[in-house]
């Protein structure tokens, strides 16, 4: 059994089901993200692990111990809240010391551990400040220090970076990962930001409407999304709706009167599907030399790459080409689009069944 185990965990708020039969095992030392749009149940799931929300059904166990209905103060988990939830009437050091005080750690050891925790988050010189005298990023790090100082078996992070500006968020992503690696604490982070989830997690759990829809390593999630929602929510993708056709050992997809070669899938003939291909997996060729012809309607220069909008018979496609220093096709010019067949994903189109 995994270190932290969720079995068929559900939560209903009156007639609304916020979380439905979530089962998940998390190993010791793992960094797992719960990713999904707002209202998908990811925060409720985290709060059930923390003990702040009581599950309507299912079982949660930690290191073999059933904690489903245990009070939050008996669980000993570290929680970092979205609003940081620092105690405004206490100094930074008092905030961090609070958990140790509750554990009746002697004063001298307490001071030592507070100092260690604050230097871990690089705030050693801010011990005597009050939260209101700190910037957003500093408050965030105090919240992390306060959660980590009690040496929790599991660290829970609720949208920890969403209140920070873009540049600081990027810095804190690496900072979070550095701290987590150094301390080795099992960590669960809730986020709606796919880039954040992909960049720092060992595994990502995608949640939609209260259910887990895919659990995978970030790169596999990106390359092999299990449904159309995930393929467009995690990274950018081109989605083309069509009909899947088996043709002996090969297959093709009919889209608006044309046929595109498609990978073999376990589907019945004429099943409605979505073809998904990432913008950076498409190559530009001479017209007629690729799998699909089109015309450039827009091109955007993004520094490290060019982004093209290309009108094709099958629909509008976005194509990203790395900037190699050359002059790419102009707006209005005809181009051919090509790709490796394995980069094309066939996703059953459940919405049009």
């Amino acid at each position, binding site marked *: 059994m995994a270190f932290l185990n969720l079995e068929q965990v559900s939560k209903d708020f009156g007639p609304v089901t916020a979380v439905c039969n979530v089962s998940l095992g998390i190993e010791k030392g793992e960094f797992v993200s719960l990713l999904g749009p707002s209202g998908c149940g990811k925060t409720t799931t985290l709060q059930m692990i*923390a*003990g*702040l929300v009581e599950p309507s059904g299912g079982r949660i166990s930690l290191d073999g111990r059933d904690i489903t209905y245990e*009070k*939050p*103060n008996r*669980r*000993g*988990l*570290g*929680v970092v*809240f*979205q*609003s940081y*939830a*620092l*105690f*405004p*009437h206490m100094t930074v050091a008092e905030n961090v010391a*609070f*958990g140790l005080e*509750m*554990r009746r750690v002697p004063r001298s050891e307490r001071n030592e551990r507070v100092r260690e925790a604050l230097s871990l988050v690089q705030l050693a010189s801010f011990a005597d400040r009050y939260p*209101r005298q700190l910037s957003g990023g500093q408050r965030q790090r105090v919240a992390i220090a*306060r*959660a980590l100082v*009690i040496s929790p078996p599991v660290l829970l992070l609720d949208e920890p970076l969403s209140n920070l500006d873009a540049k600081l968020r990027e810095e804190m992503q690496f900072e979070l990962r550095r701290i987590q690696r150094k301390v080795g604490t099992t960590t669960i982070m809730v986020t709606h930001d796919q880039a954040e989830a992909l960049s720092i997690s060992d595994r990502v759990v995608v949640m939609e409407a209260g259910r887990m829809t895919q659990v995978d390593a970030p790169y596999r999630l990106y390359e092999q999304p299990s449904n159309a929602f995930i393929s467009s929510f995690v990274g950018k993708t081109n989605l083309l709706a069509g009909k899947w056709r088996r043709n002996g050992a090969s297959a093709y997809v009919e889209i608006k009167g044309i046929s595109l070669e498609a990978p073999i899938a376990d589907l019945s003939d004429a099943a409605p599907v979505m073809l998904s291909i990432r913008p950076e997996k498409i190559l530009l060729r001479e017209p007629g030399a690729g799998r699909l012809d089109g015309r450039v309607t827009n091109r955007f220069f993004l520094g490290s790459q060019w982004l093209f909008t290309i009108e094709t018979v099958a629909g509008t496609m976005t194509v990203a080409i790395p900037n190699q220093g050359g002059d790419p096709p102009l707006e209005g010019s005809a181009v051919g689009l090509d790709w490796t067949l394995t980069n094309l994903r066939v996703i059953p189109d459940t919405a049009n069944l």
Partner: protein
Amino acid sequence: MQRNGPIALAFHILVVTFVLAPLVIICLVAFTPENTLTLPTTGISLRWFKAVFAHPDFVTSFWNSIWLATISATLSVALAVPAALAISRYSFPGRDFLNALFLSPLIIPHLVLGVAFLRLFALIGVGGSFAWLVATHIIVVTPYVLRLVLAALSGLDRSAEQAARTLGAGEWTTFRRITAPMILPGITGGWLLAFINSFDELTMSIFVTSPATVTLPVRMYMYATESIDPMMAAVSALMIALTAVAMLVLDRTFGLDRILVGQR
């Protein structure tokens, strides 16, 4: 910083003048050496202040009022804080009724309350006791405390309490170490309003005080019905001075904006 136009400025001056002018005049009249309330006066004298302290009735009543207001305000805080917590955090049958019940003394005229209590106390035979006087004052001042504590609770970030829970604090420790300090401005402001309202209460107290428990406002009222002389002005001036000092001390220790507006 918002700038006021000339009309708004004139309006502010008028309001401040109308509020302050009677107080200023009372304070000036208190220093008259003459036998009647006159202004301008012929000189400055402490004659009427001395007269106040020569009346042991007034001194006793003053202490009655101080004790009454202190005890009522404190007990009403002890009553209103748990009530506010229950009303703002839990939904239970009768929650709205409880809220309305606690606020109802605000809309019942004190005159009616006074007559009702007089009748009730006569019926159960406790007329004139200080404890029952305190009870009536608690009923009258609790709505103020409840309102302020409810306001403080509604502006409170619950996640700080949740954080304390996850860090190992039980419910009582969380209240004592986190919730109470965070709503302290509301509690202090409520206590202060309760104290002032109790200290100032006349209409109801006339009915429920006995010769042994006469409060200062009742004493002043009784005195003024018999004779109008500058001693009333001197008592008023002393009360104004006392309030001003109390406010000053509170402002220095907590900050009045924080207490009454609830913001830092």
